[in-house]
């Protein structure tokens, strides 16, 4: 990876582990400037409200729709490099989290989202919605069949391009396990200039957002394979470390 650093102002306010979670204010990502809170987060006890959560109930009512190459319902198949994307959802102790809803969304192969606000001239694909969902199985494993998303330009800075990524949203078993994040692909040459990726504070934590190419996941004559595990806070979660400077 290009080790060039983005020069930016980094805010003090962080929710959770400062080695893992990005600061709210990361000025190189311009949209943080008016939206990042400026006052210390409040340390509160973990009550039943935090130690329960909607994941259990939502999982029970969701149908599976994990084939993004065909779920547009057109009868046609999405254009692009087919990939199988699989991995485990674990808690901090390594225990698998079964029956957990995983919602994903992404661009098509040309880097275009099917969204009215995405108007850059990458072609749309009538056979690709770019959204899917799956439940983890008893071993905590999710599996999607999709196409590899493309990179796309955005207006954050001159000639800014987002590295190819897939958005992930997970509930997990409690309110504490809620996570929305993005999964990236190995060796992407665009990481060095992407403030969203680089807002993750440490190299180890950034690497954990990058999937691994895994030939054992591929299907011959059909699809390539990537593996990406996700670690959520545990069932026995303790409060986050006291926020610095939060008297």
């Amino acid at each position, binding site marked *: 990876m290009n080790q060039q650093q983005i020069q930016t102002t980094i805010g003090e306010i962080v*929710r*959770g*582990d400062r080695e*893992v*979670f*990005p600061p*709210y204010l990361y000025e190189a*990502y311009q*949209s943080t*400037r*008016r*939206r*990042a*809170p400026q*006052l210390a*987060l*409040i*340390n*509160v*006890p*973990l*009550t*039943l*409200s*935090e*130690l329960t*959560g*909607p994941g*259990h*109930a*939502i999982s029970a009512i969701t149908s599976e729709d994990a084939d993004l190459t065909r779920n547009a319902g057109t009868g046609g198949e999405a254009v692009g490099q087919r990939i199988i994307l699989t991995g485990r959802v674990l808690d*901090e*102790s*390594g225990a698998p989290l079964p029956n957990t809803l995983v*919602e994903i*969304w992404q661009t098509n192969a040309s880097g275009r*989202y099917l*969204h009215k*606000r*995405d108007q850059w001239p990458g072609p749309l694909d009538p056979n690709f*919605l770019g*959204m899917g969902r799956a439940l983890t199985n008893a071993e905590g494993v999710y599996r999607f069949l999709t196409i590899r998303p493309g990179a796309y330009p955005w207006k954050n800075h001159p000639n800014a391009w987002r590295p190819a990524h897939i*958005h992930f*949203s997970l509930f997990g078993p409690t*309110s*504490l396990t809620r*996570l*929305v*994040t*993005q999964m990236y692909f190995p060796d992407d040459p665009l990481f060095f200039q992407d403030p*969203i990726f680089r*807002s*993750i504070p440490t190299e*180890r*934590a950034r690497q*954990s957002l990058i999937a691994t190419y895994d030939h054992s996941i591929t299907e011959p004559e059909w699809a390539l394979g990537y593996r990406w595990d996700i*670690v*959520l806070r545990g069932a026995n979660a303790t*409060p986050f470390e006291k926020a610095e400077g*939060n008297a």
Partner: protein
Amino acid sequence: MSSLPLTGSQTVGPFFSLGLLYPAAQRNVLANPQTAGERIRVEGRVLDGAGVPVPDAMVEIWQANAHGRYNHPADQSEAPLDPDFTGSGRSGTDEEGRYWFDTIKPGRVAFNDQIKQAPHLTVTIFARGLLNHLVTRVYFVDEPSNVEDVTLQCVPEARRATLLAHRETREGVTVYRFDIVLQGVNETAFFNV
């Protein structure tokens, strides 16, 4: 116990409605005609540091039923479950930054064996420009038990009002208004959880 590093958070970006707000994924209406409890609408705006509405935010809520019981295996209280209530909501914001939920006022859930919490909703906010989600609570301004709520008392007194939803009645419907201010004057108190 070995401890794996957690997976970091990233913004939902500007296009999340594609994956998170398609019709079957929106849950603005939590109560059906059989649900027990006092019908309320909870609504408000998400505002940025310049007071500008945030049109690309998502607000999720989680709450107990009218009897004060969460629909979750970790809540083993004697209060009954309500088969007509899950307690989970998800709303996008519109061009004016507005979100809304039609729900019921939650009952009081336990804080510990001795005391109960004041009625509240757990609120989670996502948006373009939020690299990590924000967590807070909605309390009800006309609720006497607020003064004994341990979590609310953790919030510095000067900021406590930012967690109080204000009651009004509109065409016979009880409406609690709760604006979420991401930054600046009257910034909502967010929690480190």
